[in-house]
C-alpha cells in the first residue's frame, strides 16, 4: 500500500537538479529597457480559437452596426496580458496600426445579442492577420458573460495589438492576396476563449473549454459556439456548411473571399477533448468531434473541404500567379557559400525537417523545445544575394549525406528558415545540426524559399514552413510543391 507520505518522499527525491545560473541581470534589464521604449508589442499568449482563422457562419447580416450591441455598456479593454518585445524585422513583425480594418460583415449569434464580426491587420513582415469577436458600436471585443470579467454584462473591446496571432496570420503573396482556410473551432459566446488567462485571474467563475482542464468545471454547453473564419480568395464562389442536422450555403465576402460562420456548439462539445498537439493549460482548446464541414466551390467548378478529410480535398489558393511567380532565378541568386564543421554544439537548433530514405522521419537524437541534443553541426555562411523583406520568404539550407554502411544517416536534412528581414548583401549564417555521428560527405545547397498565398493550417510558423515541408514531404503531402531557386552549393566531408 502506497501512502501519501511515500508519494511525497518519492516526489521530493525525484526533483531534478537545477543548478544553472539565471541569465545575467544586465542582459535582462537591457531587454526590459529596450522593450520599454519599443512602440509596439506583440502578445505571446493569444485567445486561441477566436484568433484562429476559421470558416463558416450562419447568416451574413448587412454591414453597419447591428442593434443589440448598443445596449451594452462599455467595460475596460481586453488588455494584452503577456507580451514580448516588439520585433518589426523578425518573426511575424509588428502590427501596422493604420491597416487595422473591421470588415463590414456581421453574423448573428444563435442566441442573439451583439453580432459577430472580424477584423484584419497587416504586419511589418507582410502578413495579414484575422481576428473575430463580438461587435458593439463598430468595435470588436468580448462580452462580460459566462466566466469573463466576472459576468459584468459589459462590452470589452480588443486592443489593436490583439489582432496578431501566429495561427491567424496568413501570408500575403506577391499578388497581395491572403489565403487561410480556417476550420470550425469551439469558442465561448463571450469571444474570450482564454479569458481564464486574460481577464479572470481575480474571478472565481472559471470553467473549462474543450481540452482545458484548469478548473475542473465544464463550461455550460449554451455558452459555447462553433466559429469558423478565413480568407479564400476572390475565386471562391460559395461555401456549403454541413452539420449533422442541417446544411446551408453562404457566399464569401469581398475581394479576399472572407467568411465568418457562427453556429451553436455541437452536442456535448463541452465534454469533448482537444485535438491539439499540446494539451497545455491554455493549449489548443478549440476542436471537438462532430463539428460542421465546409465545402468550398471555386469559380472553375472545383471543390475542397474545411476541414479536409484527405489530402486531395484540402483547400489551396486559387489566385492566378500565386505560387512562386515572383521568385528570382538561380542565376540571379548566385552567391559564394562557405561551410565549416563544428564537432560539438551544445544547444543546436533542431532542423526543420529530417527524413529517412523512405520519406519518414529519421529517428535522430530527438529534440525538446525546438532544440536538438548536443552534437556535430555545420555552419553555412553566405552573402544574401537578394533582399528578404517579409515573412513569406527565407533562406534555407538543405543537406544530403552520402549513405554509410552500418551507420544510420538521414536522407535529407533541412535547416530552419531564416526568420528576419535581410538586406541584399547582408551576411547570413545558418547552423544545421547533423544527426549522424558517421564520417561521411554532405552535399548541400542554400536555396531561397518562398510562399505566396499558400497558407493553410500552418501552425505557429506561418505558411512558409508549410511550403518548405510540402517540397520535402511525401507526394501526397503537398499540392504543387514549389521548386525553390538555388543560391549556392557545397560539399564537405566530416570526420
Amino acid at each position, binding site marked *: 500500500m502506497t501512502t501519501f507520505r511515500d*508519494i*511525497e518522499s518519492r516526489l*521530493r527525491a525525484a526533483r531534478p537538479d*537545477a543548478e544553472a*545560473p539565471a541569465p545575467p541581470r544586465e542582459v535582462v534589464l537591457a531587454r*526590459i529597457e529596450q522593450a520599454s521604449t519599443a512602440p509596439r508589442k506583440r502578445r505571446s499568449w493569444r485567445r486561441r480559437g477566436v484568433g484562429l482563422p476559421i470558416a463558416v457562419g450562419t447568416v451574413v447580416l448587412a454591414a453597419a452596426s447591428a442593434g443589440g450591441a448598443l445596449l451594452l455598456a462599455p467595460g475596460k479593454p481586453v488588455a494584452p496580458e503577456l507580451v514580448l518585445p516588439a520585433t518589426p524585422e523578425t518573426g511575424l513583425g509588428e502590427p501596422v496600426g493604420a491597416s487595422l480594418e473591421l470588415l463590414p460583415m456581421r453574423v448573428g449569434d444563435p442566441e442573439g445579442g451583439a453580432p459577430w464580426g472580424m477584423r484584419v491587420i497587416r504586419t511589418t513582415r507582410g502578413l495579414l492577420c484575422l481576428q473575430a469577436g463580438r461587435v458593439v458600436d463598430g468595435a470588436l471585443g468580448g462580452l462580460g458573460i459566462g466566466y469573463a470579467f466576472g459576468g459584468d454584462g459589459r462590452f470589452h473591446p480588443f486592443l489593436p495589438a490583439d489582432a496578431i496571432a501566429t495561427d491567424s496570420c496568413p501570408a500575403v503573396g506577391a499578388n497581395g492576396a491572403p489565403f487561410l482556410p480556417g476550420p470550425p473551432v469551439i469558442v465561448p459566446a463571450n469571444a474570450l476563449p482564454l479569458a481564464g488567462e486574460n481577464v479572470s485571474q481575480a474571478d472565481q467563475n472559471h470553467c473549462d473549454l474543450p481540452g482545458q482542464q484548469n478548473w475542473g468545471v465544464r463550461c455550460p454547453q449554451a455558452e459555447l459556439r462553433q466559429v469558423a473564419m478565413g480568407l479564400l480568395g476572390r475565386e471562391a464562389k460559395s461555401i456549403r456548411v454541413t452539420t449533422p442536422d442541417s446544411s446551408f450555403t453562404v457566399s464569401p465576402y469581398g475581394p479576399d473571399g472572407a467568411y465568418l460562420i457562427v453556429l451553436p456548439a455541437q452536442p456535448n462539445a463541452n465534454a469533448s477533448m482537444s485535438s491539439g498537439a499540446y494539451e497545455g493549460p491554455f493549449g489548443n482548446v478549440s476542436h471537438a468531434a462532430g463539428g460542421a464541414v465546409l465545402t468550398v466551390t471555386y469559380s472553375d467548378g472545383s471543390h475542397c473541404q474545411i476541414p479536409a478529410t484527405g489530402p486531395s480535398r484540402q483547400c489551396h489558393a486559387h489566385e492566378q500567379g500565386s505560387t512562386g511567380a515572383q521568385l528570382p532565378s538561380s542565376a540571379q541568386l548566385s552567391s559564394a557559400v562557405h561551410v565549416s564543421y563544428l564537432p560539438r554544439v551544445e544547444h543546436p537548433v533542431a532542423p526543420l525537417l529530417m527524413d529517412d530514405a523512405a520519406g519518414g522521419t529519421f529517428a535522430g537524437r530527438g529534440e525538446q*523545445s525546438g532544440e536538438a541534443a548536443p552534437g556535430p553541426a555545420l555552419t553555412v555562411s553566405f552573402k544574401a544575394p537578394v533582399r528578404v523583406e517579409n515573412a513569406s520568404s527565407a533562406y534555407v539550407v538543405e543537406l544530403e549525406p552520402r549513405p554509410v554502411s552500418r551507420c544510420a544517416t538521414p536522407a535529407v536534412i533541412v535547416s530552419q528558415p531564416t526568420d528576419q528581414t535581410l538586406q541584399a548583401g547582408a551576411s547570413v549564417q545558418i547552423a544545421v545540426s547533423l544527426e549522424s555521428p558517421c564520417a561521411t560527405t554532405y552535399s548541400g545547397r542554400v536555396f531561397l524559399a518562398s510562399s505566396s498565398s499558400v497558407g493553410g493550417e500552418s501552425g505557429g510558423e506561418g505558411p512558409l514552413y508549410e511550403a518548405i515541408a510540402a517540397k520535402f*514531404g511525401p507526394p501526397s503531402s503537398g499540392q504543387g510543391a514549389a521548386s525553390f531557386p538555388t543560391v549556392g552549393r557545397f560539399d564537405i566531408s566530416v570526420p
Partner: protein
Amino acid sequence: MDSDQLRAVGALYERHSDAVMRYALRRSDRETAEEVTAQVFLVAWRRRSALPDDALPWLYGVARRALSEQRRGAARRKRLHERLRSVAVEAPPALELRDRALEHAVMRLSDVDREALLLHYWEELEPAQVAVALGCSRATLAVRLHRARARLRRELEGDGGQVGNEKHDSSRVSRTEPV
C-alpha cells in the same frame, strides 16, 4: 523607463531570478529556461502595477505559461512535420525523471494537477502560494492537491511500478480527433 523603475525590477530579479530559473530548468532545457526566465521578468515589469507583495508565486504562474508557449511552438513544428505523413502527434515530453515509473504517473495527471504537486514539492511553495501561481482559490487548490496525490497513488499502484502500461483514463488523455 526611469531609474527607480529599473532599480525596482533589478531588485526583483536579484531576489527571484534564481528560483524562476530553477523552476524552468526542472521543466525544460537550459536554453529554454534562460529565455523563459528573461520573459518572466519582462512580463513582471510590464505588469508591475499588478505585482503582489509575495511575487514569487505570481512569477511561477507567468513562467508556467511561458513554458507552455515554448512547448506549443515545438509541438507545432512537430505537428506540421507529422501531419504531412498523416501520423498522430503526441505532446513533447515535459519532464524526464530518473524514477521512470513516477515520471509516467506524473505525466498522466492533468496539467494543473501536476503543476500543483510540483510547485508544492519541488518549488516548496505553501498551498496558498500555489493557489496564487495557478490562479485558483485556496479551497480549490486543497482539493486539487488531494486529488492529485490520490490519482498519483492510483497510477503508481495500478502500474505496479512498470513503465509503458497503456491503461488510459480517457477523460485526461489528449487524443487526435477530427473536428
